[in-house]
């Protein structure tokens, strides 16, 4: 445990449901009850219409590779270069930053728009990160 670890998120009251979700093996998004807008990152109101009536729901966990870099240097603590930093476009619409696992970290293997599915990686007993892997089938 002496090795430098990757940056660990610290939930806030507005984001706690998201991190509770990843710990439970669910990718949770929010939908506006008034205008049906689905958005990310979490907040207790709709950034499209300002309604405070919003609901948390379990997303499909499916998406596609929107864009990425393969970082060589400098590497973040806890990462061994080269590693891809990806932005995933979820089937529900929002995009989120993540990493692509079970896949070579090369331009040849990482094809834009390739289908992805969420995979959960526990950092400790409180925080589980949503990562993505190439979708099966």
């Amino acid at each position, binding site marked *: 445990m002496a090795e430098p670890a990757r940056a660990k*998120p610290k939930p806030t009251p507005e984001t706690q449901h998201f991190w509770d979700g990843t710990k439970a093996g669910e990718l949770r998004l929010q939908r506006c009850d008034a205008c049906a807008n689905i958005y990310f990152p979490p907040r207790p109101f709709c950034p499209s219409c300002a309604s405070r009536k919003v609901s948390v729901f379990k997303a499909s966990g499916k998406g596609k590779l929107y864009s990425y870099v393969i970082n060589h240097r400098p590497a973040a603590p806890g990462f061994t270069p080269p590693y891809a930093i990806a932005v995933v476009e979820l089937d529900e619409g929002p*995009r*989120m930053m993540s990493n692509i696992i079970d896949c070579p970290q090369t331009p040849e293997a990482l094809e834009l728009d390739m289908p992805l599915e969420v995979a959960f990686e526990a950092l400790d007993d409180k925080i589980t990160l949503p990562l993505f892997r190439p979708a099966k089938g």
Partner: protein
Amino acid sequence: MRRNQVAVVGAAETTELGVIPNMSQIQLHADAALNAIADAGLKLSDIDGFATAVETPQQMAHYLGITPTWVDGTSVGGCSFMLHVRHAAAAIEAGLCKTVLITHAESGKSMIGKQPRFTAPDSLNGQFEAPFGVYGPPSMFPIPVLRYMKTHGITHEQLAMVAVVQREWAAKNPRATMKDPITVADVLNSRMIAYPFRLLQCCLVTDGGGALILTSADRAKDFPRKPVYILGTGESVETPMVSQMKTFDSSRAFKVAGPLAFKEAGITHKDVDHLMIYDAFAHLPLYGLGDLGFMPHEETGKFIADGNTRPGGKLPLNTNGGGLSYMHSGMYGMYALQESVRQMRGIAPAQVPNAKISVCHGVGGMFAASGTIIFTNER
């Protein structure tokens, strides 16, 4: 804002640029400020408006020994100084102050008296970007570029040409950090930083600073230098999280700020003689050309690769060598403004003959913010 009511009457960079191990960050601010004061033929006691970024206005006002009646501490990254110019012009027009000093400096290379940047783990960036290995601008700023390339049909060679052309401009500039000619092959064989970008497509890391002095156009004619008038301005912000940009094939902040400035200036793209687009990384001039409306994004890569922005080309772009070859202390916007002012004064090392209108477009953060200033030397 009304056109040509406010002018730049003082402009200067730090005495040295590059590696300045004998000055702290606040002293670099002061060095630039004193040079700009001398350039304008003023005393520090003439300054009644003050703006700066990263360092606070109170820090720098105290260090310089000035007592402003108007301050602006807008700090939205490298284009903060474009926003300062816009806000200062409005403040001068509104009568809140008469003579504004804007300073930038950064000990970007030597890191003397510079506070380290820190991403709090409970911020949105700390929760939703930092855990995935972003680590400084090279790992973040290029994240949209593969999508941009795919959507608009831009090639790696075209993105390499951005660096090649800017080095051609830098070769004409004695103060440029990097002056030796480079080829597309040199760029594509340089060390990989964050695919698809290699070393020569990433900005320099240097020490330096710059300062501007603005006053009303009516007073400007009494100053020693040729006045450079503020013809149009625009600004906007989008998001501090690059992953949350509305789209990667365009920058919303660019698309708001740029056209706002053109509309205010009452000019068309054909009227532009000289253009600066903040180039922290090689894709930014392409985003700028497209989002400011010079051409569709699909044509931006070819436009640069065909030589239209090089010395002698029809749209001289980043004529100081840019952040890729001139200097980049971390917040490059001030140096783009300095080059626009030099071009409008007619004293740039790579002067564009008879240039009358200069567009200066800046970015802050990773497409997080944007500011556009349009200058002219004719009232």
